[in-house]
Protein backbone atom coordinates (compact mmCIF):
# COMPACT_ATOMS: atom_id res chain seq x y z
CA UNK A 1 0.00 0.00 0.00
CA UNK A 2 1.52 3.35 -0.96
CA UNK A 3 2.25 5.58 2.00
CA UNK A 4 2.84 9.28 1.70
CA UNK A 5 5.38 11.17 3.72
CA UNK A 6 5.88 14.83 4.24
CA UNK A 7 9.02 16.89 4.55
CA UNK A 8 10.49 17.09 8.02
CA UNK A 9 8.75 13.96 9.21
CA UNK A 10 10.93 11.31 10.78
CA UNK A 11 10.87 7.90 9.20
CA UNK A 12 13.00 4.80 9.50
CA UNK A 13 15.05 4.03 6.38
CA UNK A 14 15.35 0.51 7.70
CA UNK A 15 11.61 0.01 7.63
CA UNK A 16 11.58 1.33 4.06
CA UNK A 17 14.24 -1.22 3.13
CA UNK A 18 12.20 -3.95 4.78
CA UNK A 19 8.94 -3.09 3.09
CA UNK A 20 10.58 -2.46 -0.30
CA UNK A 21 12.34 -5.81 -0.28
CA UNK A 22 9.15 -7.56 0.78
CA UNK A 23 7.32 -5.87 -2.11
CA UNK A 24 10.05 -6.74 -4.64
CA UNK A 25 10.22 -10.30 -3.39
CA UNK A 26 6.73 -10.73 -4.78
CA UNK A 27 7.54 -9.53 -8.30
CA UNK A 28 11.07 -10.96 -8.44
CA UNK A 29 11.18 -14.63 -7.52
CA UNK A 30 14.98 -14.51 -7.87
CA UNK A 31 15.46 -11.84 -5.19
CA UNK A 32 17.37 -13.12 -2.16
CA UNK A 33 18.31 -11.43 1.08
CA UNK A 34 21.47 -12.43 2.92
CA UNK A 35 22.50 -10.98 6.24
CA UNK A 36 25.22 -11.48 8.82
CA UNK A 37 22.94 -11.34 11.84
CA UNK A 38 21.35 -7.96 11.11
CA UNK A 39 17.84 -9.09 10.55
CA UNK A 40 15.44 -6.81 12.40
CA UNK A 41 14.54 -4.80 9.30
CA UNK A 42 14.22 -7.90 7.21
CA UNK A 43 11.58 -9.72 9.20
CA UNK A 44 8.87 -9.03 6.65
CA UNK A 45 10.95 -10.49 3.83
CA UNK A 46 12.07 -13.40 5.98
CA UNK A 47 8.54 -14.31 6.95
CA UNK A 48 7.16 -14.05 3.42
CA UNK A 49 10.06 -15.73 1.59
CA UNK A 50 11.85 -17.88 4.17
CA UNK A 51 13.55 -19.97 1.50
CA UNK A 52 15.13 -16.88 -0.06
CA UNK A 53 16.37 -15.45 3.23
CA UNK A 54 19.76 -16.50 4.56
CA UNK A 55 21.10 -15.35 7.90
CA UNK A 56 24.65 -16.68 8.11
CA UNK A 57 25.30 -15.36 11.59
CA UNK A 58 28.49 -13.44 12.27
CA UNK A 59 30.25 -14.18 9.00
CA UNK A 60 30.53 -11.22 6.63
CA UNK A 61 32.94 -12.85 4.22
CA UNK A 62 30.69 -15.79 3.48
CA UNK A 63 27.62 -13.55 3.32
CA UNK A 64 29.14 -11.80 0.31
CA UNK A 65 30.56 -15.02 -1.16
CA UNK A 66 27.14 -16.67 -0.98
CA UNK A 67 25.59 -13.64 -2.64
CA UNK A 68 28.08 -13.94 -5.49
CA UNK A 69 27.36 -17.65 -5.84
CA UNK A 70 23.63 -16.93 -5.99
CA UNK A 71 24.19 -14.19 -8.56
CA UNK A 72 26.27 -16.53 -10.75
CA UNK A 73 23.16 -18.67 -10.92
CA UNK A 74 20.89 -15.86 -12.11
CA UNK A 75 19.62 -14.51 -8.80
CA UNK A 76 19.53 -10.95 -7.47
CA UNK A 77 21.00 -11.05 -3.98
CA UNK A 78 20.86 -8.23 -1.46
CA UNK A 79 23.38 -8.33 1.35
CA UNK A 80 22.18 -6.27 4.28
CA UNK A 81 24.32 -5.52 7.30
CA UNK A 82 26.55 -3.02 9.04
CA UNK A 83 28.78 -1.20 6.61
CA UNK A 84 31.99 -1.04 8.63
CA UNK A 85 32.10 -4.82 8.41
CA UNK A 86 30.68 -5.35 4.93
CA UNK A 87 32.98 -2.71 3.46
CA UNK A 88 36.13 -3.78 5.23
CA UNK A 89 36.09 -7.33 6.52
CA UNK A 90 34.40 -8.53 3.35
CA UNK A 91 36.18 -6.05 1.07
CA UNK A 92 38.06 -8.68 -0.87
CA UNK A 93 34.89 -10.71 -1.42
CA UNK A 94 33.14 -7.56 -2.64
CA UNK A 95 36.01 -6.77 -4.97
CA UNK A 96 36.98 -10.21 -6.24
CA UNK A 97 33.78 -12.26 -5.99
CA UNK A 98 31.28 -9.54 -6.92
CA UNK A 99 32.94 -6.69 -8.82
CA UNK A 100 35.45 -8.71 -10.86
CA UNK A 101 32.73 -10.84 -12.54
CA UNK A 102 30.36 -7.82 -12.39
CA UNK A 103 27.52 -9.61 -10.61
CA UNK A 104 24.23 -7.91 -9.65
CA UNK A 105 24.78 -8.02 -5.91
CA UNK A 106 23.39 -5.18 -3.82
CA UNK A 107 25.09 -4.21 -0.59
CA UNK A 108 22.82 -2.19 1.64
CA UNK A 109 23.85 -1.18 5.10
CA UNK A 110 23.87 1.21 7.97
CA UNK A 111 26.43 2.99 10.13
CA UNK A 112 27.94 5.09 7.36
CA UNK A 113 29.71 7.96 9.13
CA UNK A 114 30.11 8.92 12.78
CA UNK A 115 26.68 7.67 13.70
CA UNK A 116 25.26 5.27 16.24
CA UNK A 117 27.75 6.03 19.03
CA UNK A 118 29.49 2.70 18.68
CA UNK A 119 33.02 4.06 18.52
CA UNK A 120 35.51 3.64 15.71
CA UNK A 121 34.96 -0.10 15.33
CA UNK A 122 31.39 0.66 14.33
CA UNK A 123 31.78 3.76 12.16
CA UNK A 124 32.17 3.26 8.42
CA UNK A 125 34.22 6.35 7.55
CA UNK A 126 36.46 4.94 4.79
CA UNK A 127 33.78 2.94 2.98
CA UNK A 128 32.98 5.34 0.15
CA UNK A 129 36.65 5.72 -0.65
CA UNK A 130 37.08 1.94 -0.75
CA UNK A 131 33.92 1.29 -2.75
CA UNK A 132 34.53 4.08 -5.28
CA UNK A 133 37.87 2.49 -6.13
CA UNK A 134 36.26 -0.80 -7.17
CA UNK A 135 35.77 -1.25 -10.91
CA UNK A 136 32.12 -1.99 -11.81
CA UNK A 137 30.75 -0.78 -8.46
CA UNK A 138 28.01 1.86 -8.33
CA UNK A 139 28.24 3.80 -5.07
CA UNK A 140 25.40 5.65 -3.36
CA UNK A 141 24.78 7.32 -0.01
CA UNK A 142 21.20 8.19 0.81
CA UNK A 143 19.75 10.54 3.39
CA UNK A 144 16.09 10.65 2.48
CA UNK A 145 14.45 7.49 3.80
CA UNK A 146 11.77 7.34 1.12
CA UNK A 147 14.42 7.55 -1.59
CA UNK A 148 16.01 4.36 -0.32
CA UNK A 149 13.05 2.38 -1.57
CA UNK A 150 13.11 4.09 -4.95
CA UNK A 151 16.82 3.39 -5.42
CA UNK A 152 16.42 -0.27 -4.48
CA UNK A 153 13.60 -0.53 -7.02
CA UNK A 154 15.68 1.09 -9.75
CA UNK A 155 18.66 -1.08 -8.99
CA UNK A 156 16.71 -4.26 -9.74
CA UNK A 157 17.53 -3.98 -13.43
CA UNK A 158 21.21 -3.19 -12.99
CA UNK A 159 23.56 -5.78 -14.48
CA UNK A 160 26.29 -5.07 -11.93
CA UNK A 161 26.76 -4.36 -8.22
CA UNK A 162 25.59 -1.39 -6.17
CA UNK A 163 26.55 -0.15 -2.71
CA UNK A 164 23.85 1.69 -0.79
CA UNK A 165 25.02 3.58 2.29
CA UNK A 166 22.73 4.74 5.06
CA UNK A 167 23.35 6.33 8.43
CA UNK A 168 21.69 4.53 11.29
CA UNK A 169 18.38 4.40 9.53
CA UNK A 170 16.21 4.31 12.59
CA UNK A 171 14.93 7.87 12.47
CA UNK A 172 15.72 9.82 9.32
CA UNK A 173 14.29 13.10 8.14
CA UNK A 174 12.10 13.00 5.07
CA UNK A 175 13.82 15.57 2.85
CA UNK A 176 11.76 15.58 -0.29
CA UNK A 177 8.11 15.61 -1.16
CA UNK A 178 7.15 12.56 -3.20
CA UNK A 179 7.81 13.30 -6.88
CA UNK A 180 9.57 16.58 -6.06
CA UNK A 181 12.81 15.42 -7.67
CA UNK A 182 13.66 12.95 -10.34
CA UNK A 183 15.57 10.15 -8.68
CA UNK A 184 17.96 8.55 -11.14
CA UNK A 185 21.13 6.65 -10.34
CA UNK A 186 24.09 8.78 -11.45
CA UNK A 187 22.22 12.08 -11.25
CA UNK A 188 22.59 14.51 -8.36
CA UNK A 189 19.58 16.28 -6.87
CA UNK A 190 19.47 20.03 -6.48
CA UNK A 191 17.80 19.93 -3.08
CA UNK A 192 17.72 23.72 -2.83
CA UNK A 193 18.49 26.13 -5.59
CA UNK A 194 20.89 29.02 -5.10
CA UNK A 195 23.34 31.20 -6.98
CA UNK A 196 26.16 32.32 -4.64
CA UNK A 197 27.77 29.05 -3.61
CA UNK A 198 27.15 25.30 -4.04
CA UNK A 199 27.16 23.03 -1.03
CA UNK A 200 27.64 19.42 -2.13
CA UNK A 201 26.74 16.71 0.32
CA UNK A 202 25.21 13.24 0.63
CA UNK A 203 23.47 11.02 3.12
CA UNK A 204 22.85 12.04 6.67
CA UNK A 205 24.32 15.55 6.28
CA UNK A 206 21.83 16.66 3.61
CA UNK A 207 19.48 17.80 6.38
CA UNK A 208 22.29 19.75 8.04
CA UNK A 209 23.20 21.32 4.68
CA UNK A 210 19.63 22.47 4.14
CA UNK A 211 19.55 24.01 7.62
CA UNK A 212 22.86 25.80 6.99
CA UNK A 213 21.49 27.16 3.71
CA UNK A 214 18.49 28.45 5.62
CA UNK A 215 20.80 30.32 8.01
CA UNK A 216 22.69 31.90 5.12
CA UNK A 217 19.43 32.93 3.47
CA UNK A 218 18.73 35.08 6.53
CA UNK A 219 21.87 37.03 5.59
CA UNK A 220 20.73 37.27 2.01
CA UNK A 221 23.15 34.61 0.75
CA UNK A 222 21.78 32.17 -1.80
CA UNK A 223 23.16 28.65 -1.22
CA UNK A 224 22.58 25.85 -3.66
CA UNK A 225 22.45 22.48 -1.93
CA UNK A 226 23.26 19.47 -4.09
CA UNK A 227 22.44 16.03 -2.75
CA UNK A 228 25.13 14.11 -4.61
CA UNK A 229 23.76 10.79 -3.51
CA UNK A 230 25.44 8.86 -6.32
CA UNK A 231 29.20 9.14 -5.80
CA UNK A 232 29.98 6.78 -8.62
CA UNK A 233 29.28 7.38 -11.43
CA UNK A 234 29.55 11.02 -10.40
CA UNK A 235 27.31 13.61 -12.03
CA UNK A 236 30.11 15.60 -13.66
CA UNK A 237 27.74 17.70 -15.77
CA UNK A 238 25.97 18.94 -12.66
CA UNK A 239 29.29 19.82 -11.02
CA UNK A 240 30.34 21.78 -14.08
CA UNK A 241 27.00 23.56 -14.21
CA UNK A 242 27.15 24.46 -10.51
CA UNK A 243 30.60 25.99 -10.98
CA UNK A 244 29.24 28.18 -13.74
CA UNK A 245 26.03 29.11 -11.94
CA UNK A 246 27.28 29.69 -8.37
CA UNK A 247 30.36 31.81 -8.90
CA UNK A 248 32.78 28.89 -8.86
CA UNK A 249 32.36 28.55 -5.09
CA UNK A 250 32.21 24.99 -3.77
CA UNK A 251 31.85 23.61 -0.26
CA UNK A 252 31.68 19.85 0.20
CA UNK A 253 30.22 18.46 3.40
CA UNK A 254 30.15 14.77 4.27
CA UNK A 255 30.03 12.27 7.09
CA UNK A 256 33.08 10.42 5.75
CA UNK A 257 36.81 11.04 5.76
CA UNK A 258 37.35 14.49 4.26
CA UNK A 259 39.80 12.95 1.79
CA UNK A 260 38.64 9.99 -0.29
CA UNK A 261 34.89 10.57 -0.36
CA UNK A 262 32.67 13.02 -2.21
CA UNK A 263 35.10 15.94 -1.84
CA UNK A 264 37.70 13.90 -3.66
CA UNK A 265 35.21 12.86 -6.34
CA UNK A 266 34.23 16.50 -6.92
CA UNK A 267 37.87 17.63 -6.92
CA UNK A 268 38.67 14.96 -9.51
CA UNK A 269 35.98 16.29 -11.82
CA UNK A 270 37.22 19.85 -11.28
CA UNK A 271 40.79 18.83 -12.12
CA UNK A 272 39.91 16.54 -15.04
CA UNK A 273 37.61 19.07 -16.68
CA UNK A 274 39.82 22.07 -15.97
CA UNK A 275 37.03 23.84 -14.15
CA UNK A 276 38.19 27.19 -12.71
CA UNK A 277 36.94 27.65 -9.15
CA UNK A 278 36.87 30.71 -6.94
CA UNK A 279 36.95 28.68 -3.76
CA UNK A 280 36.86 25.05 -2.63
CA UNK A 281 36.53 23.83 0.93
CA UNK A 282 35.89 20.38 2.30
CA UNK A 283 34.19 19.54 5.57
CA UNK A 284 34.44 15.97 6.77
CA UNK A 285 36.16 13.66 9.20
CA UNK A 286 39.83 14.42 9.76
CA UNK A 287 42.46 11.68 10.15
CA UNK A 288 41.32 10.63 13.61
CA UNK A 289 39.63 7.62 15.11
CA UNK A 290 36.66 9.45 16.54
CA UNK A 291 35.49 8.60 20.00
CA UNK A 292 32.07 8.33 21.48
CA UNK A 293 29.22 10.79 21.41
CA UNK A 294 25.96 11.54 19.68
CA UNK A 295 26.07 12.15 15.93
CA UNK A 296 25.75 15.91 16.19
CA UNK A 297 28.27 16.16 19.00
CA UNK A 298 30.81 14.25 16.96
CA UNK A 299 30.24 16.41 13.89
CA UNK A 300 30.74 19.52 16.02
CA UNK A 301 33.83 18.10 17.69
CA UNK A 302 35.46 17.08 14.43
CA UNK A 303 34.80 20.27 12.52
CA UNK A 304 31.90 19.50 10.20
CA UNK A 305 28.87 20.38 12.32
CA UNK A 306 26.22 22.94 11.50
CA UNK A 307 28.22 25.98 12.72
CA UNK A 308 31.28 24.85 10.73
CA UNK A 309 29.12 24.47 7.66
CA UNK A 310 27.66 27.95 8.10
CA UNK A 311 31.15 29.40 8.60
CA UNK A 312 32.55 27.63 5.56
CA UNK A 313 29.72 28.94 3.40
CA UNK A 314 30.38 32.48 4.68
CA UNK A 315 34.08 32.12 3.87
CA UNK A 316 33.19 30.90 0.40
CA UNK A 317 30.93 33.84 -0.43
CA UNK A 318 33.52 36.26 0.99
CA UNK A 319 35.95 35.00 -1.67
CA UNK A 320 35.93 37.19 -4.73
Amino acid at each position, binding site marked *: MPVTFTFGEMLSARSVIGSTLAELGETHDNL*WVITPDIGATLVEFRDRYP*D*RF*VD*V*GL*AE*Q*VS*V*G*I*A*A*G*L*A*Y*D*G*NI*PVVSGMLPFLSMRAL*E*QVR*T*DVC*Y*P*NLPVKIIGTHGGLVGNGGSTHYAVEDLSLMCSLTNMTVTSIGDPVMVGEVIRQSMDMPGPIYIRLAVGKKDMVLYEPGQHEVRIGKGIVARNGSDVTLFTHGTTVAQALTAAEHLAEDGVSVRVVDMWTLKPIDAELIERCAAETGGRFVVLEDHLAYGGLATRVADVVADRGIALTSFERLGIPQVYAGFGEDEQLRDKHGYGLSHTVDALRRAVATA
Partner: protein
Amino acid sequence: MTQTVLDTGPELSVAELEDRAFELRRLLLNLCGTYEGAVHIGGDLSVADILTALFHRGLRIDPKDIRNPARDRFVLSKGHAAVCMYIAMAMRGFFDYDEIVATYGQLDSAYGMHPCKVQLPGVEASTGSLGHGLPLAVGMALSGRHRGETHRVVTLMGDGETGEGSVWEAAMAGRSQRLGNLVAFIDRNRQLMTSFAEERVMFEPYPDKWRAFGWNVIEIDGHDMRQLVDAIDALPDPASDVPTVVICETVKGKGVDFMERNLAWHAGSLGAEDLERAMASLEASRTKEAR
Protein backbone atom coordinates in the same frame (compact mmCIF):
# COMPACT_ATOMS: atom_id res chain seq x y z
CA MET B 1 11.54 -28.53 -11.13
CA THR B 2 13.83 -28.24 -14.12
CA GLN B 3 14.05 -31.37 -16.18
CA THR B 4 16.50 -30.48 -18.85
CA VAL B 5 18.13 -33.20 -20.85
CA LEU B 6 21.85 -33.19 -20.37
CA ASP B 7 24.11 -35.16 -22.69
CA THR B 8 26.80 -36.22 -20.24
CA GLY B 9 28.58 -38.61 -22.59
CA PRO B 10 29.68 -42.18 -21.94
CA GLU B 11 30.80 -43.26 -18.48
CA LEU B 12 34.49 -44.13 -18.53
CA SER B 13 35.95 -47.13 -16.75
CA VAL B 14 38.65 -46.83 -14.10
CA ALA B 15 41.28 -48.01 -16.61
CA GLU B 16 40.13 -45.45 -19.17
CA LEU B 17 40.21 -42.73 -16.54
CA GLU B 18 43.76 -43.71 -15.60
CA ASP B 19 44.75 -43.33 -19.24
CA ARG B 20 43.15 -39.87 -19.30
CA ALA B 21 44.95 -38.83 -16.16
CA PHE B 22 48.27 -39.90 -17.66
CA GLU B 23 47.46 -37.97 -20.81
CA LEU B 24 46.47 -34.92 -18.76
CA ARG B 25 49.85 -34.96 -17.01
CA ARG B 26 51.65 -35.37 -20.33
CA LEU B 27 49.79 -32.44 -21.88
CA LEU B 28 50.42 -30.38 -18.76
CA LEU B 29 54.18 -31.01 -18.85
CA ASN B 30 54.20 -30.29 -22.56
CA LEU B 31 52.59 -26.90 -21.93
CA CYS B 32 54.99 -26.26 -19.08
CA GLY B 33 57.88 -26.95 -21.47
CA THR B 34 56.44 -24.60 -24.08
CA TYR B 35 55.44 -21.67 -21.90
CA GLU B 36 58.27 -19.39 -20.88
CA GLY B 37 56.82 -18.25 -17.55
CA ALA B 38 56.27 -20.25 -14.40
CA VAL B 39 53.42 -22.75 -14.11
CA HIS B 40 52.04 -23.98 -10.77
CA ILE B 41 53.12 -27.43 -11.77
CA GLY B 42 53.34 -28.99 -8.29
CA GLY B 43 49.71 -28.34 -7.37
CA ASP B 44 48.59 -29.10 -10.94
CA LEU B 45 50.10 -32.57 -10.77
CA SER B 46 48.56 -33.23 -7.36
CA VAL B 47 45.04 -32.60 -8.68
CA ALA B 48 45.39 -34.26 -12.10
CA ASP B 49 43.67 -37.46 -11.00
CA ILE B 50 40.92 -35.63 -9.13
CA LEU B 51 40.15 -33.35 -12.08
CA THR B 52 40.17 -36.32 -14.46
CA ALA B 53 37.74 -38.22 -12.25
CA LEU B 54 35.49 -35.18 -12.00
CA PHE B 55 35.48 -33.96 -15.59
CA HIS B 56 35.32 -37.41 -17.17
CA ARG B 57 32.98 -39.11 -14.77
CA GLY B 58 31.87 -37.31 -11.64
CA LEU B 59 30.41 -34.12 -13.05
CA ARG B 60 27.21 -34.24 -15.06
CA ILE B 61 28.19 -31.72 -17.70
CA ASP B 62 27.90 -31.24 -21.43
CA PRO B 63 30.58 -29.19 -23.22
CA LYS B 64 28.10 -28.38 -25.97
CA ASP B 65 25.57 -26.97 -23.54
CA ILE B 66 27.51 -24.97 -20.95
CA ARG B 67 24.54 -23.02 -19.63
CA ASN B 68 22.19 -25.93 -19.11
CA PRO B 69 20.58 -25.31 -15.70
CA ALA B 70 20.71 -29.01 -14.87
CA ARG B 71 24.51 -29.22 -15.16
CA ASP B 72 26.69 -29.83 -12.16
CA ARG B 73 28.69 -26.75 -11.20
CA PHE B 74 32.42 -26.94 -10.60
CA VAL B 75 34.29 -24.18 -8.80
CA LEU B 76 38.08 -24.37 -8.81
CA SER B 77 38.77 -22.77 -5.47
CA LYS B 78 42.50 -23.37 -5.80
CA GLY B 79 42.53 -21.14 -8.86
CA HIS B 80 46.28 -21.51 -9.37
CA ALA B 81 45.59 -25.00 -10.77
CA ALA B 82 43.70 -23.32 -13.62
CA VAL B 83 45.88 -24.69 -16.39
CA CYS B 84 45.29 -28.24 -15.23
CA MET B 85 41.55 -27.55 -15.26
CA TYR B 86 41.72 -25.95 -18.73
CA ILE B 87 43.45 -29.03 -20.11
CA ALA B 88 41.11 -31.45 -18.31
CA MET B 89 38.21 -29.46 -19.78
CA ALA B 90 39.84 -29.45 -23.22
CA MET B 91 40.12 -33.23 -23.05
CA ARG B 92 36.42 -33.31 -22.23
CA GLY B 93 35.60 -31.16 -25.27
CA PHE B 94 35.19 -27.71 -23.75
CA PHE B 95 38.31 -26.07 -25.14
CA ASP B 96 41.01 -26.62 -27.72
CA TYR B 97 44.29 -27.81 -26.22
CA ASP B 98 46.44 -26.36 -29.01
CA GLU B 99 44.88 -22.96 -28.44
CA ILE B 100 45.62 -23.22 -24.72
CA VAL B 101 49.27 -24.03 -25.44
CA ALA B 102 49.55 -21.31 -28.07
CA THR B 103 48.05 -18.54 -25.95
CA TYR B 104 48.43 -19.47 -22.25
CA GLY B 105 49.36 -16.42 -20.20
CA GLN B 106 49.69 -14.22 -23.30
CA LEU B 107 48.15 -10.80 -23.73
CA ASP B 108 44.40 -11.08 -24.47
CA SER B 109 44.32 -14.83 -23.93
CA ALA B 110 41.31 -16.20 -22.05
CA TYR B 111 43.64 -18.84 -20.58
CA GLY B 112 45.35 -17.09 -17.69
CA MET B 113 47.14 -18.13 -14.54
CA HIS B 114 43.85 -17.96 -12.59
CA PRO B 115 40.47 -18.68 -14.20
CA CYS B 116 38.18 -15.84 -15.26
CA LYS B 117 34.58 -16.71 -15.99
CA VAL B 118 33.98 -13.51 -17.90
CA GLN B 119 36.79 -14.18 -20.34
CA LEU B 120 36.34 -17.93 -20.50
CA PRO B 121 32.73 -19.14 -20.58
CA GLY B 122 32.53 -22.73 -19.47
CA VAL B 123 34.46 -21.89 -16.34
CA GLU B 124 31.87 -21.44 -13.59
CA ALA B 125 33.54 -18.82 -11.38
CA SER B 126 36.42 -16.38 -11.35
CA THR B 127 38.84 -17.52 -8.68
CA GLY B 128 42.44 -17.19 -7.63
CA SER B 129 42.36 -15.61 -4.21
CA LEU B 130 42.23 -18.55 -1.84
CA GLY B 131 39.30 -19.33 0.42
CA HIS B 132 36.70 -17.91 -1.96
CA GLY B 133 35.46 -21.03 -3.77
CA LEU B 134 33.54 -22.70 -0.97
CA PRO B 135 31.44 -19.58 -0.16
CA LEU B 136 30.60 -19.24 -3.86
CA ALA B 137 29.69 -22.92 -4.00
CA VAL B 138 27.39 -22.51 -0.99
CA GLY B 139 25.55 -19.73 -2.85
CA MET B 140 25.25 -21.84 -6.00
CA ALA B 141 24.05 -24.85 -4.02
CA LEU B 142 21.39 -22.75 -2.27
CA SER B 143 20.20 -21.53 -5.64
CA GLY B 144 20.04 -25.00 -7.17
CA ARG B 145 18.16 -26.44 -4.25
CA HIS B 146 15.72 -23.55 -4.21
CA ARG B 147 14.91 -24.21 -7.87
CA GLY B 148 14.29 -27.86 -7.16
CA GLU B 149 17.19 -28.93 -9.33
CA THR B 150 19.09 -32.09 -8.57
CA HIS B 151 22.57 -31.14 -9.68
CA ARG B 152 25.59 -30.91 -7.40
CA VAL B 153 27.93 -28.04 -6.78
CA VAL B 154 31.48 -29.29 -6.46
CA THR B 155 34.50 -27.28 -5.43
CA LEU B 156 38.17 -28.22 -5.23
CA MET B 157 40.35 -26.65 -2.57
CA GLY B 158 43.94 -27.12 -1.58
CA ASP B 159 44.55 -28.17 2.01
CA GLY B 160 46.79 -25.16 2.58
CA GLU B 161 43.96 -22.94 1.38
CA THR B 162 41.79 -24.18 4.22
CA GLY B 163 43.90 -22.02 6.51
CA GLU B 164 41.70 -19.17 5.27
CA GLY B 165 38.97 -18.30 7.77
CA SER B 166 36.39 -17.80 5.03
CA VAL B 167 36.55 -21.55 4.33
CA TRP B 168 35.29 -22.28 7.81
CA GLU B 169 32.60 -19.61 7.61
CA ALA B 170 31.40 -21.43 4.52
CA ALA B 171 31.77 -24.84 6.16
CA MET B 172 29.37 -23.66 8.86
CA ALA B 173 27.02 -22.06 6.35
CA GLY B 174 26.92 -25.15 4.13
CA ARG B 175 25.98 -27.34 7.06
CA SER B 176 23.55 -24.81 8.54
CA GLN B 177 21.76 -24.54 5.21
CA ARG B 178 21.64 -28.35 4.97
CA LEU B 179 23.19 -28.52 1.54
CA GLY B 180 23.50 -32.16 0.58
CA ASN B 181 24.15 -30.97 -2.98
CA LEU B 182 27.41 -29.36 -1.89
CA VAL B 183 30.67 -31.31 -2.27
CA ALA B 184 34.19 -30.16 -1.48
CA PHE B 185 37.20 -32.08 -2.74
CA ILE B 186 40.39 -31.31 -0.88
CA ASP B 187 43.80 -31.77 -2.41
CA ARG B 188 45.61 -32.80 0.75
CA ASN B 189 49.14 -32.55 -0.61
CA ARG B 190 50.47 -31.34 2.72
CA GLN B 191 52.53 -28.56 1.22
CA LEU B 192 52.15 -24.82 1.34
CA MET B 193 54.07 -22.64 -1.09
CA THR B 194 57.20 -22.34 0.99
CA SER B 195 56.92 -25.10 3.60
CA PHE B 196 55.57 -28.49 4.39
CA ALA B 197 52.19 -27.76 5.89
CA GLU B 198 52.45 -29.34 9.31
CA GLU B 199 55.70 -27.48 9.98
CA ARG B 200 53.76 -24.24 10.00
CA VAL B 201 50.11 -24.98 10.59
CA MET B 202 48.64 -27.74 12.71
CA PHE B 203 46.07 -29.07 10.25
CA GLU B 204 45.79 -32.46 11.93
CA PRO B 205 43.54 -33.99 13.03
CA TYR B 206 42.31 -32.74 9.69
CA PRO B 207 39.29 -34.95 8.87
CA ASP B 208 38.06 -34.43 12.44
CA LYS B 209 37.94 -30.70 11.84
CA TRP B 210 35.44 -31.27 9.04
CA ARG B 211 33.51 -33.79 11.12
CA ALA B 212 33.34 -31.23 13.91
CA PHE B 213 31.71 -28.85 11.43
CA GLY B 214 29.07 -31.48 10.77
CA TRP B 215 30.20 -32.58 7.32
CA ASN B 216 30.08 -36.04 5.84
CA VAL B 217 33.76 -36.99 5.45
CA ILE B 218 35.22 -39.37 2.87
CA GLU B 219 38.97 -40.05 3.03
CA ILE B 220 40.75 -41.48 0.01
CA ASP B 221 44.05 -41.74 -1.83
CA GLY B 222 43.69 -38.93 -4.34
CA HIS B 223 45.87 -40.70 -6.89
CA ASP B 224 43.94 -43.98 -6.82
CA MET B 225 41.36 -43.77 -9.59
CA ARG B 226 39.37 -46.67 -8.18
CA GLN B 227 39.02 -44.85 -4.85
CA LEU B 228 38.14 -41.58 -6.58
CA VAL B 229 35.39 -43.29 -8.56
CA ASP B 230 34.10 -45.07 -5.49
CA ALA B 231 34.01 -41.78 -3.57
CA ILE B 232 32.06 -40.13 -6.38
CA ASP B 233 29.66 -43.06 -6.47
CA ALA B 234 29.26 -42.83 -2.70
CA LEU B 235 28.23 -39.17 -2.72
CA PRO B 236 24.88 -38.77 -0.97
CA ASP B 237 21.68 -37.83 -2.72
CA PRO B 238 21.84 -34.09 -3.56
CA ALA B 239 18.43 -33.75 -1.92
CA SER B 240 19.90 -34.89 1.40
CA ASP B 241 20.99 -32.37 3.97
CA VAL B 242 24.63 -32.94 4.88
CA PRO B 243 27.42 -31.58 2.68
CA THR B 244 30.31 -33.88 1.86
CA VAL B 245 34.05 -33.34 1.89
CA VAL B 246 36.28 -35.77 0.04
CA ILE B 247 39.74 -35.49 1.52
CA CYS B 248 42.19 -36.72 -1.08
CA GLU B 249 45.67 -37.63 0.14
CA THR B 250 47.96 -36.49 -2.63
CA VAL B 251 51.57 -35.79 -3.50
CA LYS B 252 52.51 -32.39 -4.80
CA GLY B 253 54.31 -32.91 -8.10
CA LYS B 254 52.86 -36.43 -8.46
CA GLY B 255 54.21 -38.40 -11.41
CA VAL B 256 57.51 -36.60 -11.87
CA ASP B 257 60.10 -37.92 -9.45
CA PHE B 258 62.20 -34.77 -9.12
CA MET B 259 59.12 -32.64 -8.45
CA GLU B 260 57.41 -34.89 -5.91
CA ARG B 261 57.32 -33.39 -2.42
CA ASN B 262 59.93 -30.89 -3.56
CA LEU B 263 59.37 -27.35 -2.30
CA ALA B 264 61.28 -25.99 -5.29
CA TRP B 265 58.48 -27.13 -7.62
CA HIS B 266 55.47 -25.23 -6.25
CA ALA B 267 55.78 -23.36 -9.51
CA GLY B 268 58.37 -23.41 -12.23
CA SER B 269 59.13 -23.68 -15.89
CA LEU B 270 60.68 -26.54 -17.79
CA GLY B 271 63.56 -26.15 -20.20
CA ALA B 272 63.99 -28.68 -22.99
CA GLU B 273 66.23 -30.88 -20.89
CA ASP B 274 63.95 -30.76 -17.83
CA LEU B 275 60.96 -31.53 -20.01
CA GLU B 276 62.67 -34.63 -21.35
CA ARG B 277 63.56 -35.78 -17.83
CA ALA B 278 60.00 -35.05 -16.62
CA MET B 279 58.40 -36.98 -19.46
CA ALA B 280 60.74 -39.92 -18.90
CA SER B 281 59.89 -39.93 -15.21
CA LEU B 282 56.17 -39.77 -15.97
CA GLU B 283 56.50 -42.73 -18.37
CA ALA B 284 58.46 -44.67 -15.77
CA SER B 285 55.89 -44.01 -13.05
CA ARG B 286 53.20 -45.38 -15.30
CA THR B 287 55.16 -48.52 -16.12
CA LYS B 288 55.84 -49.01 -12.42
CA GLU B 289 52.18 -48.68 -11.57
CA ALA B 290 51.18 -51.07 -14.32
CA ARG B 291 53.36 -53.77 -12.78
